[in-house]
């Protein structure tokens, strides 16, 4: 557990970067610090491993005041990932990953073995081991950065906008893999981003900071979207928060209707409606066709309309609603765990389900509430 205890950072020129921050990052959870430029989120992060020293207040890790710990020792026990990965250009991928173990005095063989294991863990090909960072793509470099931070198995990870410099598709992949990894590793993570969507997707709790470095609100993502503490937070979480908050609400049992389908490569037969769902031989939906256009010939790949998203039966209300809204037939496709078709659902049916669901309330057992939070009345 990392506790910020009334932490203030004033730089020599008088700027206050962080103002009386009190916050707890619980063990094994992802705490995201989010806010606009100048809100002191990176400064706060760097005070944890003392790359910046607080002016006032203390940062306590598992009961120990970091100010009393040896700097280098403290840092070697904390994984750190930054925006451009910060890989050492003169070292191979494997040697980059093995940096901290070597600093801790592991022997060469053990370090290499551990580095190879991590390379695989972050989803990189073993053939990349002897490459230099300049030979990797941005996404690959970032994975190496994560592997390097994990090398000595530190209980704490600090991540400073690690996925901001890669393109949106790669970012999405990296985020998903990061969550999968965290599922296995249970690190105590403090994650900094300026992107509220990323914060909401990754955070177990999200701390919104305002310019000047004061804490505006800290809460679980669903609660944050449903109950922003003030105008600043409401503005910052953005316009689509009503819709986005649906992603934290598991679908209740939706009234599914059965859907007539055609297997790809076969003839659609008699046209029942304007749109017909196409599946593969495992009953996995692949797209929609207009039977009127296909006529009497087999359905080809080129006939497919792929605009519709798929919702999992055990997924969220957001997924179900999006499937209905994005489907050309207006019938949202719902699949099971294996990706096979179960049935379809209409948007108004999802909306009825939403109306029957309560908005997320604060979990009373929530251990994450910092002392400085002031929930200043709810907004409509």
């Amino acid at each position: 557990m990392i506790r910020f205890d009334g932490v203030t950072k004033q730089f020599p020129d008088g700027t206050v970067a962080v103002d009386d921050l009190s916050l707890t990052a619980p063990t094994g959870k992802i705490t995201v610090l989010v806010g606009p430029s100048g809100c002191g989120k990176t400064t706060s992060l760097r005070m944890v491993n003392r790359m910046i020293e607080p002016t006032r207040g203390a940062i306590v890790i598992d009961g120990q005041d970091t100010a009393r710990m040896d700097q280098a020792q403290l840092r070697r026990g904390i994984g750190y990932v930054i925006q451009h990965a910060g890989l050492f250009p003169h070292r191979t991928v494997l040697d980059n990953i093995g940096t901290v173990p070597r600093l801790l005095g592991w022997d060469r063989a053990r370090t290499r073995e551990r580095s190879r294991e991590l390379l695989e863990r972050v989803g990189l090909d073993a053939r990349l081991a002897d490459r230099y960072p300049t030979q990797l793509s941005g996404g690959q470099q970032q994975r190496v950065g994560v592997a390097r931070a994990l090398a000595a198995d530190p209980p704490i990870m600090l991540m400073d906008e690690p996925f901001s410099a890669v393109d949106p598709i790669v970012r999405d992949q990296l985020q998903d893999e990061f969550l999968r990894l965290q599922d296995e590793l249970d690190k105590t993570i403090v994650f900094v981003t300026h992107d509220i969507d990323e914060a909401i997707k990754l955070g177990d709790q999200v701390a919104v900071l305002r310019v000047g470095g004061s804490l505006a609100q800290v809460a679980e993502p669903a609660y944050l979207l449903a109950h922003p503490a003030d105008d600043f937070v409401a503005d910052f979480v953005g316009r689509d928060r009503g819709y986005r908050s649906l992603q934290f609400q598991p679908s209740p049992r939706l009234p599914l209707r059965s859907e007539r389908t055609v297997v790809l490569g076969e003839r659609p037969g008699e046209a029942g409606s304007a749109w017909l769902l196409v599946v593969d031989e495992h009953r996995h939906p692949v797209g929609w066709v207009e039977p009127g256009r296909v006529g009497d010939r087999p359905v080809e790949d080129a006939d497919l309309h792929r605009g519709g998203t798929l919702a999992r039966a055990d997924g969220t209300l957001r997924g179900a609603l999006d499937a209905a809204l994005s489907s050309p037939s207006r019938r949202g496709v719902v699949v099971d765990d294996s990706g096979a078709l179960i049935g379809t659902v209409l948007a108004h049916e999802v909306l009825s389900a939403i109306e029957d669901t309560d908005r997320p309330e604060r979990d009373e057992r929530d251990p994450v509430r910092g002392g400085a939070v002031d929930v200043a009345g709810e907004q409509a």
Partner: protein
Amino acid sequence: MDWLASNWRTVLDLAVSHLYLAGVPLVVGLVLSVPLGWTAKRWSRTYFAIITSAGLLYTIPSLALFVVMPLIVGTKILDPLNVVIAMSVYTVALLARTVADGLTAVPDHVEQAATAMGYKGLRRLFGVELPLAVPVVAAGLRVAAVSNVSIVSVASIVGISQLGDLLVDGYNRVIWGELVTGILATVLLALVLDALIVAGAKVLTPWTRAAGGRA
């Protein structure tokens, strides 16, 4: 050519002395420049003082330095050590700045990562900063090498033998073969040192050539 044919042994001896007098200071100067350059980079207030005084050293005429060196370090007037020390001073004059700039050129995010991983002190300098400064430092070293080879010739005037002797003697006695040999041998020596430095830097920086082949 005739002159060279009958005197090649002398020329070879002089070339070896020349290499010694120009090369050893190169190594000594580099070793001294690392702490100076590191200090200049580490404490930016010292940068101006260190770099300016180093630059001023280079403006001292070599002949004057060769002559006063015995007074400063207490050596004999004909001791080759005078030249070695003086040349080391020139090397430091050129390299202190190069090392400081090379260390400053290490990318910020790499420095940050090094700090965050708990690198400090000498391990940081030799493990991260200096290896990354090699391309810049090597470039400075090449300039210093050529400059040393050229300045050392002047030492003939204070009685320290090297390839400069051929120039002085060839000029005084108007022996064209000797004069041309002296010039060519000096140029050749400079080229050899330069090639050695380039090769050395190449061995130390395999990553700079590892371009392309993205997976």
